[in-house]
């Protein structure tokens, strides 16, 4: 009102003001900036966010699959276009036509039936609706009645209304029953009509189905092709922004709630996305496809659904490590096999090692280490040769003597140093300690002195002081031995050589060779290389030792070969001729400098005493005191007692770092010192350390006692790789019991016995479950090798096995190699018997089988089949006696062709096993000389093979001849 008078109807005009900016220019700036902004957003959405590398890999795999599917469809078409396929198709077409023609004739009936069906369906639909309504209304009203009744029971005046409602509920119930009845009738009518239609069109439907069946495969392939080929549907599904609905390119993953990664004081499930790119990994048929599509090289054991490690259950990273959740090459923690591959990856994928992810991926051989997580109990594990070798070396080379590892214990691996005086001389020990390989190039004894951190001028002198003190200590502490005198007669070295070559020494000892065996096992290095004995010990000691090792060292692992005195003498004569490594004789024995020795002694005294006290103490020490003090300190420092039994160190704890969880130790805890060029991974650290155990001292200034002290093992690169694999398997990760292999009682018995088998080096001679049997390479004829012992549990009677293991007797007189006397305890024998029965999955502990008088006819037939040499009817028999001795009846063939004496059978063999053996010997012992007499595959070779086999077995059970047994037990 008051302002109404101002011009333009009350709105005050703004004063005209100039613009501060040039507006048309602002428009231009706006246009260009908006355009740039739009482009940047397109870049963001399409290129950076959408175009992930894994999508490219998936597209590649789809092309591969499309190509493959097209080929399969073409093959399917070809199959239907010619030959039996075409014939079947023609038949199906003809049948279809015939059925359709027949139906045409009954058109009217069919139409009528179909009309009836339609009517019935309509009626049913109507009644069904009524039925459901009636039931629902009844239920709703019933609830109302129930609450009314309950209320009425509290309020006594309200009974009237409750009764009325009850009455009404009765009417609802009637309606419900009526509708239900109608529904049942209508359903019956519909079913009957449908059956009528089906009956009339049955022939046509069947013919159509049969024809479709021929195309079933093709239809399936076409459907598959639709999913993988590049077509409009797939393009839209996978286009940017649309791909949130149902893309065909998507991240693939398997989630493993029970296989967990440890993070920040808790664990998280593994989510393995490896298969996002490695799309063919669990499928057969992509063996030759390029990476990342290649099939896993061992699908029988891994990833395929029928293998023991299916992808859904096990995943990838539990064995191969790597960052499970990553979908990018670089971030998945791929780890190159070598420098060259690293370079290529840097070029192709901008790859670099991850610094915070502590689990770089492990390829084939190294991944075997992770088998150990679950398979700790398998002493030898099928499919993991590197792990097996690594574990064997770890045990055999005595790594666990210094490096505690949970579950690793047993007799010390190296000779006892308790009985040195009888065995050798201080000069030799000094030379040996100086450099063991100078004496025996193949030795497992590592070198302690003159390594990369102790080889300057000062240490050369100091090493001599240390070696002398250790030697002095060992000899002072050593016990003597009572040795039998050497017989006066000289041994025959030539015969000794033959014996060494034949009785089995070579199973555990290298003899004279300076080269390491190329084998991937060190079972041939179980005992020392038998070279240079003359330089080391006396004939008398060797003679006493090989006759009965336990007479010198009751704890030795060396078994007795039951050598006669003459044999022992010959072997001694031969062994003493084997020279030490070239140049060993010229090496001077280290000599101690008294002044330096005193300085070192003072240094060690000062570890517990003040400088002043130490000086007073050393002034009071005699030469002997100083040597003994220093010797003891040095044996303690170098941990000699880890592998050797050293007097005075029976209970001392090992010196090395515990390795029980070494494979989980975080990489930054590994000290790489000032060494550059070694990739910072666990594997590389362990590998490098094994190559040069003192390398991390490189250019580090330390006092002598702080220096690294792990000795240099004489390993080949392959052995280093194997040990690295094993150590990487020592992880903290606990796989839950449900995911671990569950060992049944048989397998547990096997594992328990296998430990003993490993400790006694049985596999050096005997093949067992596909492992071992190395001795075969020393004999020309496989029949001359120690026998296969895999079937032992099913084959022999436990009582007999017990006696045999306690005191071996000759079963195969043609063998020159001998089963040694191990002097097993009863406990050990039980372990072995259980193991054999476990391997064969046999439970029967007391097999009994007797032939009765009523079997006389069978025995007679068996005798005729067997054929005793020279007896009547021999020509018609199977001539078993031509190879097998049967009691006194010896074969005529040369002994190398013989089989075991069958007179032993009733006492030795299980009756049931003989039947299995006769049915198919080669199935039990592949390569056996025993022929198949009764079956060729499944084809019987005789009229009634089962009867023949039983007859033969029954006959064998009559061959008890005490004199034969005495003869055969030597």
């Amino acid at each position, binding site marked *: 009102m008051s302002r109404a008078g101002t011009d333009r109807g009350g709105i005050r005009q703004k*004063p005209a*003001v*100039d*613009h*501060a*900016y040039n*507006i048309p220019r*602002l428009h231009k*700036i*706006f246009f260009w*900036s*908006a355009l*740039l*902004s739009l482009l*940047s*957003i397109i*870049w*963001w959405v399409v290129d*950076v966010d959408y175009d992930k590398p894994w999508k490219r890999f998936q597209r590649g795999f789809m092309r591969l699959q499309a190509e493959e599917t097209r080929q399969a469809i073409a093959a399917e078409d070809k199959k239907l276009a010619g030959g039996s396929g075409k014939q079947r198709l023609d038949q199906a077409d003809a049948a279809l036509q015939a059925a359709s023609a027949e139906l045409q004739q009954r058109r009217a009936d069919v139409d009528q039936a179909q009309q009836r069906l339609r009517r019935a369906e309509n009626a049913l639909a109507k009644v069904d609706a009524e039925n459901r309504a009636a039931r629902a209304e009844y239920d709703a009203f019933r609830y109302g009645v129930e609450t009314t009744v309950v209320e009425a029971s509290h309020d006594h005046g309200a009974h009237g209304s409750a009764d009325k409602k009850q009455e009404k509920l009765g009417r609802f119930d009637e309606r419900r029953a009526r509708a239900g009845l109608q529904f049942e009738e209508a359903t019956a009518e519909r079913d009957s009509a449908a059956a009528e239609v089906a009956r009339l069109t049955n022939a046509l439907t069947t013919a159509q189905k049969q024809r479709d069946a021929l195309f079933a495969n093709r239809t399936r392939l076409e459907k598959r092709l639709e999913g993988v080929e590049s077509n409009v549907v797939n393009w839209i599904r996978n286009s940017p922004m649309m791909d949130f609905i149902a893309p065909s390119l998507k991240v693939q993953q398997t989630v493993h709630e029970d296989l967990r990664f440890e*993070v*920040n*004081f808790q664990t998280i499930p593994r989510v393995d996305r490896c298969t996002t790119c490695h799309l063919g990994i669990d499928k057969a048929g992509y063996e030759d496809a390029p990476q990342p599509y290649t099939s896993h090289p061992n699908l029988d054991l891994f990833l395929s659904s029928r293998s023991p490690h299916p992808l859904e259950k096990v995943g990838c990273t539990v064995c191969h490590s790597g*960052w499970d959740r*990553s979908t990018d090459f670089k*971030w998945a*923690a791929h780890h190159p096999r070598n420098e060259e591959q690293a370079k290529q990856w840097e070029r192709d994928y901008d790859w670099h090692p*991850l*610094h*915070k*992810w*502590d689990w770089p991926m492990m390829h084939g051989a190294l991944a075997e280490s992770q088998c150990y997580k679950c398979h700790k109990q398998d002493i030898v594990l099928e499919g993991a040769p590197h792990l097996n070798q690594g574990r064997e070396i770890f045990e055999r080379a005595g790594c666990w003597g210094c490096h505690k590892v949970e579950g690793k214990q047993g007799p010390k691996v190296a000779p006892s140093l308790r009985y040195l005086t009888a065995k050798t001389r201080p000069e030799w020990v000094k030379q040996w300690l100086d450099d063991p390989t100078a004496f025996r190039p193949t030795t497992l004894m590592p070198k302690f002195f003159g390594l990369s951190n102790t080889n300057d001028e000062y240490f050369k002198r100091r090493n001599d002081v240390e070696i002398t003190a250790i030697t002095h200590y060992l000899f002072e502490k050593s016990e003597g031995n009572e040795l039998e005198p050497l017989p006066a007669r000289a041994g025959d070295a030539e015969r000794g050589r033959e014996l060494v070559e034949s009785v089995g020494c070579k199973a555990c000892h290298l003899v004279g060779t300076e080269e390491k065996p190329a084998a991937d096992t060190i079972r041939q290095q179980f005992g020392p290389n038998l070279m240079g004995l003359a330089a080391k010990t006396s004939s008398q000691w060797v003679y006493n030792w090989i006759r009965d090792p336990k007479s010198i060292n009751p704890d030795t692992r060396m078994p007795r070969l039951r050598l006669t005195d003459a044999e022992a003498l010959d072997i001694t004569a031969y062994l003493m001729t084997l020279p030490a490594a070239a140049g060993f004789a010229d090496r001077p024995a280290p000599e101690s400098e008294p002044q330096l020795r005193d300085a070192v002694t003072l240094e060690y005294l000062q570890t517990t005493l003040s400088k002043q006290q130490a000086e007073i103490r050393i002034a009071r020490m005699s030469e002997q005191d100083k040597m003994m003090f220093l010797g003891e300190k040095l044996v303690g420092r170098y941990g000699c007692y880890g592998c050797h039994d050293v007097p005075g160190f029976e209970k001392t704890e090992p010196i090395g770092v515990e390795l029980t969880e070494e494979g989980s130790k*975080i*990489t*930054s805890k590994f000290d790489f010192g*000032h060494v550059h060029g070694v990739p910072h991974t666990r594997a590389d650290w362990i590998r490098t350390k094994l190559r040069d155990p003192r390398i991390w001292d490189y250019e580090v200034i330390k006092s002598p006692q702080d220096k690294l002290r792990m000795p240099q093992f004489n390993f080949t690169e392959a052995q280093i790789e194997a040990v690295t694999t094993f150590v990487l398997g020592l992880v903290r990760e606990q796989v839950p019991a449900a995911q671990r292999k569950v060992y049944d009682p048989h397998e547990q018995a096997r594992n328990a016995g296998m430990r003993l088998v490993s400790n006694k080096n049985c596999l050096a001679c005997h093949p067992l479950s596909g492992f071992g049997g190395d001795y075969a390479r020393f004999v020309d004829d496989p029949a001359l090798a120690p026998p296969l012992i895999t079937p032992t549990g099913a084959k022999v009677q436990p009582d007999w096995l017990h006696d045999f293991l306690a005191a071996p007797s000759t079963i195969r007189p043609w063998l020159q190699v001998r089963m040694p006397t191990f002097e097993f305890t009863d406990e050990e024998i039980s372990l072995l018997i259980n193991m054999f029965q476990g391997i064969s999955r046999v439970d029967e502990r007391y097999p009994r089988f007797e032939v009765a008088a009523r079997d006389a006819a069978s025995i007679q037939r068996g005798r005729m089949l067997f054929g005793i040499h020279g007896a009547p009817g021999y020509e018609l028999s199977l001539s078993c006696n031509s190879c097998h001795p049967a009691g006194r009846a010896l074969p005529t063939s040369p002994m190398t062709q013989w089989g075991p004496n069958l007179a032993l059978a009733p006492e030795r063999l299980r009756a049931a096993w003989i039947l299995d053996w006769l049915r198919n010997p080669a199935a039990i012992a592949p390569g056996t000389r025993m022929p198949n007499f009764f079956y060729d595959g499944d084809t019987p070779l005789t009229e009634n093979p089962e009867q023949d086999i039983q007859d033969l077995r029954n006959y064998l059970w009559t061959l008890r001849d005490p004199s034969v047994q005495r003869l055969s037990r030597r």
Partner: protein
Amino acid sequence: MVETLKDIVNFASRPEYFFTLVVIFLWISINTRLAKHFWTKRGGLVMLVLITVFLCVSLFDRDFRLIITYPDNVPIVGMLLLVFFFTWLAMYQAFRNDARMAAGGVPVEQETTHDKVFVWPDLLYVEFICGIISSFVLVVWALGLPAPLEEPANPNVSPNPAKAPWYFLGLQELLVYFDPWIAGVILPGFIIVGLMAIPYIDKNPKGNGYYSFAERRFAVTFFLYGFLILWVALIIVGTLLRGPNWNFFGPYEFWDVHKLEALVNVNLSEIIWVQLLRTGLPHNWFVREIFGIVLVAAYLVVLPKILARVWLKGMYEQLGAARYYIMMFLLLVMVATPIKMYLRWLVNLKYIVAIPEYFFNI
């Protein structure tokens, strides 16, 4: 030759020298006769070229390149250039206005500023365009130089050096010299409180709406000192010159985890009682720390009073007691920061007042 140069730069970058050098440079560039040459267009260009040449040439050094191009550090280098540019821009306008006013003219702003403009398009349109351009720059930056996301952190392996976000690295550098509660709580608290207090303390109307240095010499000098030296320069030290174990590394030095530095810091009480008086430390903490306590009290309480009577008489009268003492307190705390740092560098002083019994150290 190149190696010698690198060694010189490495040496000059040690915190004590670096700090001293930037302080001297700041002083020369604003408070001497040479000052006017720095804040011209030519001066700015020369400085920019020098900085750029230094960065570019240094990039040939592997260690320098590693530090500068680490994705976390790229924004810091960008920030340095921006700080330089805006400082120059402000000082350029201030010196120009000072020159005009000295010649009896008026500031440029007075001549060019409109009285009123439209909200649309003069304000909103321009803001809108700025928003678009900013988002464009940010998108391109984010895509071209992605966030340095890495594999999951491994709690068993704490990063070495462990660094705060870059904008806090100046504060983290202070942790070297101060007790954590001072460096982490008190000093940042004073920064915030002090910034909030400025409008109430500073009632000088000069410089409102136009740039000027001559009229606001005291305020600008102390602001530049607090911001450029105590904040930005310390960020440079913390980001680029502090390596593993928070050891100092020159810009051309390899960040070796194994590098060791001898740290033998002593408290003021030890210097006085043990080294000078040779009596050993008293058992009572108050007696032990009495010198430090007196020193701090004298610095914060007595010094302002003396200044008010002697050198800053005019200011005291102009501001009044309340404003004067609040300002002096904040100012002295600010100045105390480098004092403590210098004491550490020069005499290895650990704490002036060290009362570990009550977790109280200054």
